[in-house]
Structures are given as structure tokens and as C-alpha cells.
């Protein structure tokens, strides 16, 4: 499925083809997923994207949705990191979608970091790979870089402790290579590397290396410690070769395989097989140029209806061409909706 995936990610797109594909996909999920059908009992098609049915991102914390059709072969369950102690989302992955999602993320990442193979350093622990039947969002994001890696090294001894960096392993890799790829969740990248006290010899070994740092997972934790993107960037790039880059991706576990990179001009871009709407939280009316809740869509999610997800993230769609030269829908990501504390009788 999806001819759209054959094009360059940010090339001009046939919007009618996207609408056609996502309509077909929605109908497939309606046919194969009873809970989804109950959410949208009267839906039979849309003549514009704002009529495409969505699933609120929070539903995935409470229900494991699956689309059961003869051609769908479910595999593992993808779980979100739930870093704030909340209930994690759970997404049923299927074989065909996983392949498409890998293609998608590879195409988007290649566009941002270049095609050449180089060692990939992952700020996570190898043990995170070894959970049978489940894969965490962190590992899924790291593994999306695997096709661009000549070798993979997990740098943390303990997945839950960003201070557990195995410096000897890092030393060994740095000594042998001038080009490196580093992936970490945003807050881990800061805690383990950017904001960490790197050993003097490691800092010295890193001098002049070309490193692409790729991070995702949001800024919530770093906002709490007042670290902004510029501070993270400056800390990571200090002493490295000028070609080094820090690349911030926005993505959801509920939209696995779809990455929204932050371009040089400060905008997020949707690949040709994805799209973004912004909705008024109180009316769900689509908004152009105004701030509202982001609805993310893609045509790659076959095993469950996570092809169109209404998020709790705020954004603003921006019309017109981006000065960075990339096409695709562009938008500004403005963070999560502000949450007030739940007041009650202490029983929640």
C-alpha cells in the first residue's frame, strides 16, 4: 500500500491521492475494528481531510485497538515511555505496517542526516531490546536509524539511569571513527551527554568529530530544568566539527514511523504520506493559522486505527512555502496543552 511512499518525503504531493488512500484506510479499519466502528458509527467517507475520522491519543492508554482482517498479521505491542508516571499507550504493530514505517522513517531521516553509513550510538541500554512481545517507543525510535548505521552501540548500562554511560565503549568507538550518529530521547541526551560532565579524555577525543545528534520525545522534562533547544544544541556541538548537527524530531508512539523534523527555519514538516490538521479543542472545527490541537495522519498504519490521531499537543498550521525548501504540510509545534492539577478528594 501507498504509492506516496515512493516519492521523496518532502517533494510536492498529489493531495487527492492522499485523501483517497486515507479514506480507503479508514474504511478498512471500520470494517476490521469493532471499537473503532462504535466510535464512528455513521462514517462512510470524506471529501476533505477534515472529515477523516480520528482516534484521540488518550484512547490508546485505555484500549488496545486492533484491526482484524485476513491480510493483517499482528506482531508486537509498542508501548509509550509514559515518563510522567502516566498509563502508557499501547499500539498493536503488524508486519506490513512495520515494514512501511521503517521505510518512512528511513526516508525522512536520510533527508535530514544524509545517506552515509556510520556508527550509531544509542543512549539506552541493550537490555531494552530484550523484552519479548513488546517494544518501547525509545527503542523503536532508535531502531529507525538502524539502516543508516554501520554498527550499533548502546551506551547506557542501565536504561533508567542516564548517568550510567559506559565511557570505555564510547572511547573505543570515537577512536575508530570521525563520523557518528547519536540518538537519544531529548532529556536523556541532555542528562547523559549535553548537560553531563564528560570525562576530559572523552571530550578531547570528540574534538573535531562530525556527529549528527538525533533526538525526540519532547521537551517537557528539560523545560522543568530550564534547558531550551539553543542550550542543548550549544552544549552538544561544543568542540565538534562544523558539519555536526542536532536534529529534533517530533513524533508519537501512536504515529510510529512518521517523524516531523524541525527544519532550519523553525517549522515541522509532514512527509508526503502524512498530513496534519489543527482543531479547535472546544468545537473540533479545523483551524488554519490559529493555535489548536494537532491531528496527525498517515497512510501507513494498517494493523490498528492509529492512522489519524487527535493529539493533546498544540500547534499552528502555516501556509505557503517554507524558506528551507522542503514541501509538505508545515506547522509549528507549541507544546502540550497546559494541565491543571486534578482537584478532588484525594482519591484519584
Amino acid at each position, binding site marked *: 500500500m501507498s504509492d506516496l511512499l515512493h516519492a521523496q518525503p518532502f517533494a510536492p504531493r498529489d493531495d487527492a491521492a492522499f485523501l483517497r488512500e486515507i479514506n480507503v484506510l479508514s474504511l478498512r479499519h471500520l470494517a476490521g475494528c469493532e471499537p473503532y466502528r462504535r466510535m464512528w458509527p455513521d462514517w462512510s467517507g470524506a471529501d476533505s481531510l477534515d472529515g477523516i475520522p480520528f482516534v484521540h491519543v*488518550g484512547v490508546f492508554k485505555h484500549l488496545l485497538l486492533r484491526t482484524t482482517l485476513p491480510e493483517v498479521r499482528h506482531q508486537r505491542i509498542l508501548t509509550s515511555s509514559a515518563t510522567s508516571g502516566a498509563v502508557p499507550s499501547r499500539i498493536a504493530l503488524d508486519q506490513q505496517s512495520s515494514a512501511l514505517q521503517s521505510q518512512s522513517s528511513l526516508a525522512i531521516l536520510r533527508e535530514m542526516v544524509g545517506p552515509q553509513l556510520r556508527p550509531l550510538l544509542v543512549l539506552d541500554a541493550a537490555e531494552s531490546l530484550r523484552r519479548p512481545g513488546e517494544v518501547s517507543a525509545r527503542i523503536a525510535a532508535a531502531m529507525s536509524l538502524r539502516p543508516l548505521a554501520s554498527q550499533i552501540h548502546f551506551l547506557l548500562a542501565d536504561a533508567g539511569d542516564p548517568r550510567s554511560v559506559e565511557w570505555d565503549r564510547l572511547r573505543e568507538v570515537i577512536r575508530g571513527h570521525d563520523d557518528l550518529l547519536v540518538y537519544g530521547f531529548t532529556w536523556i541526551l541532555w542528562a547523559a551527554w549535553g548537560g553531563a560532565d564528560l570525562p576530559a579524555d572523552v571530550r578531547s577525543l570528540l574534538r573535531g568529530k562530525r556527529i549528527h545528534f538525533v533526538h525526540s520525545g519532547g521537551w517537557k522534562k528539560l523545560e522543568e530544568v530550564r534547558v531550551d533547544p539553543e542550550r542543548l544544541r550549544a552544549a552538544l556541538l561544543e568542540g565538534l566539527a562544523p558539519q555536526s548537527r542536532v536534529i529534533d524530531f517530533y513524533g508519537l508512539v501512536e504515529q510510529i514511523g512518521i517523524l516531523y523534523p524541525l527544519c532550519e527555519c523553525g517549522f515541522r514538516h509532514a512527509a508526503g504520506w502524512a498530513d496534519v490538521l489543527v482543531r479547535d*479543542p*472546544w468545537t473540533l472545527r479545523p483551524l488554519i493559522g490559529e493555535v489548536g490541537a494537532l491531528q496527525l495522519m498517515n497512510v501507513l498504519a494498517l494493523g490498528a486505527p492509529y492512522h489519524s490521531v*487527535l493529539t493533546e499537543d498544540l500547534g499552528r498550521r502555516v501556509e505557503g512555502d517554507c524558506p528551507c525548501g522542503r514541501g509538505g504540510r508545515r506547522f509549528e509545534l507549541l507544546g502540550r496543552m497546559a494541565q*491543571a492539577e486534578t*482537584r478532588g*478528594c*484525594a*482519591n*484519584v
Partner: protein
Amino acid sequence: MSERPQLFEDASGRHAVLLPFRLDQRIGEWEGLRTAMIRRCPEPFSREEWAYLVAFLDAANLRAPVNGAFGLPASQQGGACTAAYRPRGPVAVWLPSNVSLLGPLMLVLLSLSGNSLRLKAGSQATDLTAVFLEFARQHLPAGPLGEYLGRQVRLEQFGRDDPRNASMAAEAAARIVFGSDEAVQAVEALPHPVGSMLVAFSDHRSVAWIESAAAGDEALASLIRVFTIYGQAGCTSPSQVVLLEGRPEDALRIRDRLLDLWPRVVRHDPPAYLASENVMGRQHAAAVGWQAVLAPRNAAVLAAGAFDLPPPVGRLTLPIIPAPLAAAVANLPANLQTIGHVLEHPEDPAWLRLLAGTRAKRFVPLAAMHHFGPVWDGWEFWKQLFEVVPLC
């Protein structure tokens, strides 16, 4: 005790209350604070919370616990007293992070008991009790109440592992704990004086029982008002509405009438994150079998269904369930607090017989579900803050 005994009498006799202040003066001082309260609602109180607090400080409302415990004021002349009541001693109160208006309301009631107070607020949240206490200290004119709040009320904010928890328990003649069952058990386990009283206001849920025939617009508007105060987070909010002896079509009719009434009763939008959560709540409820709809402007989720469906989620999701009375009783929450009712004949003794077989702590008209008073969770706690000295 500088004040002379204050005398009350009821059917059981004449009672002397031994307090270092005049109760009528203290009640008057609280009522007087309302003038300043009407002018300004401090953050983070919502307007509804502040309005409830203003109403709570009405003198007649504050006299109710006194009169309920001791009777009506008696003349100084007359016969001998049967008992004297004096403050039990220092009271320690544990307020968790998200506790609601119950904190400020408790502060007001406890101030009428004459006991010194030590209150522990949650360590991680803005605490309404602290904000109200500060407001009162700032706006009360010089007088006994202001002096009491300044000298005998100590409010601190610290965590559950802080050693001050132990010192609070060690010096308390009465310990009042809001929180989960685990939090109550933790406080109960702290060393305390022999005879120290423990009052636990722990994890509870409430329900509304409505007879379809009595479910007019006024009752439904009342339901909306009561539910929206804290939604599913409130121990006295209706976590579900049971339509007694109702049919599924009655549930849909009530649901749709609530939809019509909602914007007339609630005139402000929920915050964006709650509007968003309601979209989730509607979808989840529909997915698991409820006939769920969103109130205008995504203000709430109204879900008609049955007891055997998986429970819907969301802080502002209100399940509406038609059921025979026996099923309503059988499905009461194990940790039941209040049954708020809309009944054609609530005075019918059959309701009392039925209550005998439930764990309901309160059985009150729907509109009174949140009304806090000197009897709570089955405890006549306010009266118990006094020691009784029999005199004959």
C-alpha cells in the same frame, strides 16, 4: 478558659460548653469575612469553589454544628447542667495534594471547636487551605478569630516521608486524615498519645439515584451543577447516575435533556485539556459499548449504558444507567460515600429500611451532595472534638 461557660439545651438536658471565646462572636467574625471574599476570588480557587465557601460562612450554617451537638442557646438562669464540654486538645490534619474545598471547610469548622490546629498540606500542589488561611489572616479585622488563626493554627507543606508527620501525630489529641487508604494507614501507624482519636476521610465514591418521574429540568440542572464541581475526582460528586426502575430509552431521554440544559447551566468553557479529554472519554465510552455523546463545546461526556459495561473513563464523563432498585443497591460502590437522590417520596420509610442494608454514609437530596458538615463519612467528628464531662 477566660470565657464563662456557654449554655445550651436540648431534649437530653442542659450543657455547658467551655471555650476560651464566644461562639457567637467567632461565627460572626467568619461571616464578616464574606464582605472581603465577595470582592475578590484568589487564585487558584474557581469561582464555584469560592462561592460555595462564601455560602458556607453564613452564620446560620455555622451555628448548625453547634446546635446539632449541644442544642439551642439556653438562658444563664435555670437548672443544673447535665454535662460540660471542653476542647479535646491539639488537632492534627493531613491534607493531601489534590484535596478539594474540604480543607478550607474543615479549617472553619475546627476553628469553632477551640482546639489548636496543625495542618499538613501536600508537598507538590497549590493548596486551597493555605490560600484561604492567608486570605483570612489578611482580611479579618483584629479580634479573637484573627488571633486564633495567627497563633493557634499552623499550616506546613511537606512530603509523606518527612519526620514532621511523626511529630504531628505524637502531639495530637485528634488526628484527621484525608487521603487514600494507604495514606490513612500510614498516619494511623505513627506513634500517638493514648486515647488520640483518628478520623479518616479516605477513598470514597458517590452516586445519584433518580426516579424518572421526578427528573424534571430543575433536578437535572442540579445534577449538572453538582457533577461539574469536581466530576469523577470528587468523593461527593455523582460518579454515576442510576435511573431507578428506568428503561434504556429513559436513559437516552435524560441524557439528551442534560445535553440541552448543559450550556444554560454551565456558562463557561472547560479548559482546553479537559475539552480534549472529553473527546477521548466519548470515544472510549462508545468503543466499550456506551451510548455516549459530548455536551456542547466538549464540556462533558454523557454516557447511557448498563452496569455490566466496562466503566467509562474521563474526569467529566457521567454514566447514566437505568436499573431496578435491587440492581442499583447491588452495584453501589464498595467505598460508597453519598447517595444523592431525586425521589418522588424521599420521606417514605421504605428508603430508611433500604439504607440499613447499604454502606451509604449520607443519603441526601442531589443538590446537597457536596454539602460538608459536622457529620462526615459516618463520623460525628465535630462533637467528638470535645471531651464530655458528666455533671450528674
